[in-house]
Each structure stands twice: as C-alpha cells, then as structure tokens.
C-alpha cells in the first residue's frame, strides 16, 4: 500500500506497545508499553502536519511558502505532557504496589491478593 514509511513506523510502534501491554507480566513493562503506544499515536499526529521540505512554523524574516501545520505540534505537546503525567502517576502507583507486595509481577500480585 502506498503509505509512507512514517506511517508504517506509527503502526509498528502502536502494535508493539499494545503487544507489550497484552503480554508482559511486569507492571513496569506494561507502563512502558502504554508509553510506546502513545508515542506511536503522537508520531502519527506530528507526521500529519509535515510534508517533506516544510519549515518549522517559526515566522521570521525568511518565511518561505512551505510551513508545517502548527496545530498538530501544539496538540502533540499537550498530549506529551498528559502522557508524562500519567506515567509519573502510574510509576508511583507501581512503586507503592511494590512496597506492598514485594513484586511487580502481575501474576504474583494476583496470587498474593487472594
């Protein structure tokens, strides 16, 4: 299919992240998986705004005709911050869980909860 390479990378990241969430039993790796998945989405958003040869959306004296769409950039920034916040929160939860159960393995935690 006629997708550019960047889109394949997006799908690859998205799929890898999902696969990691679905199969890893280590909580930290699940958190990493979520981040990878979100990274895929954000790359998609950024790629949408850019076509080869575009300039960054900084208006100066040398403004050319091809300027990248600034909106996805702004959205991406926002989404990155949100992803970082959730990651911080999730990691702190995992730390607390580790202090409680002495493990970050999801199966072991489940067996200890019963």
């Amino acid at each position, binding site marked *: 299919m006629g997708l550019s390479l960047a889109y394949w990378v997006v799908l690859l990241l998205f799929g890898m992240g*999902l696969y990691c969430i679905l199969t890893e039993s280590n909580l930290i790796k699940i958190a990493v998986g979520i981040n990878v998945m979100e990274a895929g989405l954000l790359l998609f958003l950024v790629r949408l705004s850019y076509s080869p040869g575009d300039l960054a959306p900084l208006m100066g004296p040398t403004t050319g005709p091809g300027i990248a769409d600034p909106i996805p950039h*702004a959205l991406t920034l926002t989404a990155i911050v949100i992803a970082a916040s959730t990651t911080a929160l999730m990691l702190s939860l995992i730390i607390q869980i580790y202090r409680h159960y002495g493990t970050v393995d999801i199966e072991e935690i489940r067996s200890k909860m019963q």
Partner: protein
Amino acid sequence: MRLRKIAAAILILVLTLALVGAIAELPSPDERVSQSALTQRIIGKGVVETGATNLVAAVLFDYRAFDTLGEATVIFAAVAGVVLMFYHAPLHPSAIGLSILAKRSLDVIGPFVFVAGMYIVVYGHISPGGGFQGGVILATLTILISIVYGLQEERRLLDPRFKTALESSAALLFMTVAFVGVFSGEYFLSNLGAGFFRGHPGSVLSGGAIPLLNVAIGLKVGAGLALVFYSMVKKEPE
C-alpha cells in the same frame, strides 16, 4: 502464556492492517493543497493576531490556550496524586551525596542550567521552546542537586512547602492572566483583545499574554516535577 502471546500477536497484526486501510484513505499531507482552511488561516494571520512569531506557541497559548490550561491542570493533578500516594512513605536515599568533584561541577554548571531553563521559558513565543520545556529543565536542576548534594540538602534549599506554594501560585498567575479577559469585557483567556501589550513581533516584549503564560507554566511545571521527584525518593514522613 505462550498461547496468549500468539493470540495477541495475531490480533494486533489484524488490527493494524485494518487501520492501514483507514489511514490510506486519508488525504495525504504530502500534497500542499491538503492544508486545511484552519491551518492556512493560522499560518497567514497568526503573527498579526497573536504577536508571537512561534506559531506553535501562538496556538498553544492563544488560539488553544484552554487546552494548555487543561494540561497544566493535568500536571497539577498528577503532582497532587503522587504526593498523596507518598504521603507517609519512608525511604532511605543517599543523604551524603556524591564526591566533592561532582559537587563543585554542579556549582559551576548549576547557574547555567537555571539560565538555560529561564531562557527557554521567556523566549518561548519567539523561538522553539516554552513553559513546559523550560520548566522541565528547571526541575532537572533540583534533581541534580538532590543527587549530587543529597536529598537533605535539596530539602534545605527548597522546602517542599515552598514548592507546593510556588506551584499553586504559578497556577493562580495563569488564572489571573486568563481572567483579565473576563474583567476587561472580553473573553476568558483573551490575549491582545484584552489589552495585553502587543509589542513588536520577534522581540522579547511582544505577544501580549503569551510570555506571561509561559512564565506561569514554566514555574508550575518546574515546581511540580521537582515535587514529584522529591515525593518519590523522599526519606522522612512529613
């Protein structure tokens, strides 16, 4: 377990292939005509309408400043959550810090890191960067201090209560700027329309409220992330 891995792999493969179809139908950004009316408008009039030459900052702090308020709140919530989570958490970090060599090095580069952070914050509306990016650099400074000098020293320099107060005050600064629009008869988060100083686009004193918002966000993010780090590694219960 192996079964789940195979199932997950197949599932994700099929799903991504299904998404390929959806993406392939999208208008390709490689053709210049695909830029929407919205994009063209912002590229065309952005500088005039906001006074900021960094269009990303223009979108982030003016056209879509409400998103930025939301994301600042997200950080605030995450910080509150982390602090809540570690409210009574005892842990034993290194209290001594690293060697004298590292300490002296930090003494030298510390001010530069601070200046770099502030620069990125203050110049956010005319060059790449902005409150979030600069704020993160400011927060790394506190992390460096706690690693090199130990948490006790960092705590002595920057009391967590001070950080909390700084974070809240910075958020309140953001709100104040946002409410100026309301009180001047314009709308919430109005920028130039509310009478903020336009300045000459490209200079530091330009872009109306955007630099102010950048500073507020920078302080808030810096204080917030420092608080997150401190909460995660702190020693004594407060």
